[in-house]
């Protein structure tokens, strides 16, 4: 069965106005969702990426250039990823459609791991 990589983009500033109660409610929703995904064997892995710092490497004319990221022009940054097992893009999209991340304004990008 193919494995898909779901990259979760969010805008941390959007959360600054939420109340503690609202934040707890969102976390509970996430927990319910990811428990379901693990129980069904769909979720293979998930990891948060550390905020606030990153590097972008490029070699131009044999010379390494290192830029600080992440990429400040875009408001949204990759917050973390999930690896999910599914039969097809159709199915993985269905699985992700009720991911709480979307409910709270985030974006999800899905790509299939190339296993050939």
């Amino acid at each position, binding site marked *: 069965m193919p494995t898909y990589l779901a990259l979760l983009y969010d805008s941390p500033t959007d959360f600054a106005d939420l*109340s*503690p109660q609202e934040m707890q409610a969102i976390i509970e929703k996430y927990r319910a969702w990811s428990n379901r995904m693990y129980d069904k064997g769909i979720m293979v892995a998930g990891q948060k990426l550390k905020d606030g710092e990153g590097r972008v490497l490029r070699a131009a004319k044999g010379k390494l250039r290192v830029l600080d990221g992440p990429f400040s022009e875009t408001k949204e940054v990759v917050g973390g990823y999930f690896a999910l097992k599914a039969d097809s893009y159709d199915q993985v999209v269905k699985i992700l459609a009720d991911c709480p991340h979307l409910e709270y304004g985030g974006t999800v990008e899905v790509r299939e791991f190339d296993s050939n």
Partner: protein
Amino acid sequence: MVDHLFRRQAGRMVAVLTRSLGAAHLDLAEEVVQEALVQALRRWPFMGVPDNPAGWLYRVARNLALDRLRRDARFRERLAEIRRHLPEADEPGGEPALAGEMTHDQLRLIFLCCHPEIPRDGRVALTLKAVCGFGVREIARAFLVRETTVAQRLVRAQRRIRERGLPLEVPGPEEITGRLDSVLEVLYLVFNEGYAAHAGDDLVREGLCRDALAWCEHLAAAPSTRGPAVHALAALLCFQASRLPARVDAGGNLVLLEDQDRRLWDRPLIARGFRHLERASAGETLDAYHVQAAIAAHHAGAPAHGDTDWPAILALYDRLLEMNPSPVVALNRAVALAQVEGPAAGLEALEAAAGHPALAGYALLPATRGELHRRLGEHAAAAACYREALGRPCSEPERRFLMRRLDAALSARP
């Protein structure tokens, strides 16, 4: 996770951090706590909820606070001292934030937020935000004001704390009475807001009632704050809260006192109310909370609506009206009078109070008038009153209740 964990833990963390940072930097403590919660929101979906969520949040908030202090010149000289005084970990046991628990830091914070030098609406907003962990939007919804209004009140309250150098401490015996009055008033307002259900979601409203009651009981138990007035308010809140499970039916509809299933009333809470009431009568003083608690005790103690001692309640309302001649008290007295002397007498008393401008937008005035007309069999007059009430601000359950009464009055007309 425990219900309300984030909200309660936010209040606790703000209190601990403010103690180390100083009252003037309450806003900084709040910012850091908010940031810690946002970090949990962004990390826990991936890493799962930690075994000790409260401890995790505190650790992150503490580190964020120290980071901010390092970058802030105002704190440079005090940094080492603040670091020493900021507890390494959350209080022993880690799992905090249950209703009724209040740390000494929170007690100090509530006295700061309710300081009489802060304007009254600012006191309420700041207590709800800093001590109870409610958000600006939730406070705005509960009090039917705009978010920007709440935000302004908070900013002004914080500024007042800084400008006047208001202290973060539980007042000593010489000034405790006056300062405590202000705290009790805020708790009373918070509870009523939750109880009156103007708007907003159930969770927030229930949270308002539970927090106000829990903290009032904490004040009633703490040696530095306990006293007759605190016990009187605690008794009142226990009696009122005991009816929460019976006030709304399974369909979310309002159930009037006379129609409530009294088996649903919270008996242990009523028993606690009577214990507080007993202690409230220990002193010489008798204030409005005593009288209101006594009225609530009559309702709580009546096995059925028909057993209610209305003459005693009416006498208490007479007393209350003397102490606090407000139109709302007059309205409630008119209801009691109607039970004792009949609906016509109630209507007459109601008319005397009706002209008051404070009742101009108050839906309960025409609703009560409609109820008394209904009992007199004057259905046309009742219908007109229900219509008038529907034109005033009321909650969704109240609106549905008035609609049902209006329909009944219209179909009863000959």
